[in-house]
């Protein structure tokens, strides 16, 4: 066990993947010699060589198109998109190519590409270094979407994503890249995709979250406990595939649901979760489902702390449904 932050956990997972499987290659903008703008690939080029860890020209479509071509040939590319805000030039390659190749070829051409990219706000990044684009990609058939929240889940989910026979968008919560620390096993381990966990147990209301905002939800649970409200917190870990049972079982127990995500509200992933619970656990509900999300605005620069869901907003929503 080593005390690590998320960056170090990601680096450890990539180092293991490169060592275990000679078909794994890493590439992206500034990830080789420089080691990545967040240092996630620090030292990996020196250790594994310039052929397997390399810098690319500045083109996201180029990065993902290259990854697809390599995957078609049987390799296991783990490309990085420097910020998830920059992913849109590769949207066509991801949505129309990466996610459809297996289907279009009837399974002859799986595309086991793991696209790593930091997402989310709270770092004074403004419009183009803060977005949470997960809903676009969760809406894309054939693509898995995974969001770790801390060093332990980052390492275990990343190794599982790289092993997975299908393409995975791996969204790293950059706001807590360094702030979140934990004891992490030095050896390899995998956390299954599509398995949510009950992060803490409670009876009165279920809070579901993923990624960076999970830490705000934990604080909200503390605040609620101080006010005699027992909240159960579910960490989704992966949006696609989605572990419905863990969420539904929790809602059946508590009868109330508050959904939290940073991304804008309209057609955010919370809408999917609310529809799911309405379809499958309506009669267990004792209050309306509430969402605490980013607003339907471009990600703001100056007012980002007002934009982002925080512990208090989550607390207030929970109080509302408990008092309904």
């Amino acid at each position, binding site marked *: 066990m080593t005390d690590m932050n998320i960056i170090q956990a990601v680096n450890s997972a990539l180092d293991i993947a490169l060592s275990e499987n000679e078909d794994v290659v890493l590439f992206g903008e500034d990830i080789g010699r420089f080691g990545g703008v967040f240092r996630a690939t620090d030292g990996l080029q020196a250790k594994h060589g310039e052929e397997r860890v390399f810098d690319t020209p500045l083109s996201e479509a180029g990065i993902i198109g290259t990854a697809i*071509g390599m995957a078609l*040939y049987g390799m296991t590319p783990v490309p990085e998109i420097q910020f998830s805000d920059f992913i849109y030039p590769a949207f*066509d390659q991801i949505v*129309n190519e990466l996610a459809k190749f297996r289907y*279009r070829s*009837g399974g002859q051409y799986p595309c086991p590409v793991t696209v790593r990219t930091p997402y989310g706000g709270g770092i004074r990044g403004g419009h183009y270094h803060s977005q949470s684009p997960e809903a676009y990609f969760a809406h894309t058939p054939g693509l898995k979407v995974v969001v770790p929240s801390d060093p332990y889940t980052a390492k275990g989910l990343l190794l599982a994503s790289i092993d997975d026979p299908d393409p995975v968008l791996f969204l790293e919560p950059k706001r807590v890249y360094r702030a979140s620390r934990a004891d992490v096993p030095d050896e390899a381990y995998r956390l299954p995709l599509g398995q949510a966990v009950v992060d803490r147990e409670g009876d009165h209301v279920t809070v579901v979250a993923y990624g960076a905002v999970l830490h705000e939800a934990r604080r909200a649970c503390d605040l609620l406990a101080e006010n005699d409200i027992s909240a159960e917190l579910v960490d989704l870990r992966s949006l696609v*595939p*989605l572990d419905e049972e863990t969420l539904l079982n929790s809602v059946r127990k508590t009868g109330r649901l508050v959904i939290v995500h940073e991304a804008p509200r309209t057609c955010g992933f919370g809408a999917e979760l609310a529809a799911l619970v309405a379809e499958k656990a309506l009669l267990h509900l004792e209050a309306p489902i509430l969402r605490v999300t980013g607003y339907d605005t471009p990600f703001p620069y100056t007012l980002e702390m007002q934009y982002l869901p925080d512990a208090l907003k989550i607390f207030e929503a929970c109080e509302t449904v408990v008092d309904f």
Partner: protein
Amino acid sequence: MARARTKKAAAASATPATLPLSDLKNTYLAMVRSRVLDACLADLSRRSLIGLHPPAAGYEAHIYGALAALRPSDWLFPDLRMSGVLLARGLGAREWARMVLGSGSSGHLGHASSAEMTARSLNVASVSPLMGSHLIQSSGAAHAMKIKRSDDVVLCWFGPGAGATGDAHVGLNFAAVYKVPAVFYFCTSGDETADAERLGGESFAQRAEGYGMPGIRVDGSDAVAVFQAVEAAVSRARSGGGPTLIEGRTPARDEGADPVEVLAAQLDAAGLDSLSLARDASTAFEAELRGAVEAVQGESAPTSSSLFEQVFAEPSPQLQEQRAALLAHRNRFPKGLGDLEEPPS
């Protein structure tokens, strides 16, 4: 034979390779079959059995002249009108028919349209209807060959539409940066006006100099010239020399030579009877395709269940549930709306 090369390319292969007469004949027969395939696809389209399928007419030298320079382990990234390369690479007529008709028992499970052909076993990538995206993927596949120490190469065909995209620039640039074993073959349509609307400049091959790779122009109506240009580029790629950009110029239809007839004249000059060769090959191939279509028609339409196959290696719980819901729905309403009009008594 109108043919110009850059100085760099001329240095790369001073003596053009020659094609043995047997290969020349096979190339000619493949081009003849391509015309039959065009007619067959047009007929299927007229009968509404498939959607529109762009013809390969005028492109035969681009396709089959280039193919003659490759070996079966080399990878192909064709464009939409080039599905004939699968047949040339050995795809059986019945499997071709299953794929074209979207049969549930085809290699792609009926998931793809008639132009989006795939055959991994033949090293042919799934043909994408998008413009230009496959240039980058070609560079990626060739990059993988380089890393894996394979001496195979990638051949990527594309036209002026794809050439106009940002992806074309990115694909060529990536290929040049990493010196991958790829041959990018730009083929014109023969419609100079349409081409001029898509691309500026006199020659697409001129751009190669800017990328730091050889650029070669070749007469796209002359299969032997195409073979020689591609053969030189392939040799260069196989020996670690990196990518080449070839521009195959198809003469305008109203004034230009027909690529099938150009090669026929060359065969006749070598003492073969191209006319009877073509007649026999056309008759046999037409019968083969027609027979295959008849044999597999109605063989197996894709099932409702197959809609959900190969989205992922293992269907997610949500997909399984959606599949079960669709099957239950169809079970309850086997006649669709008709079941509502005649409620069961």
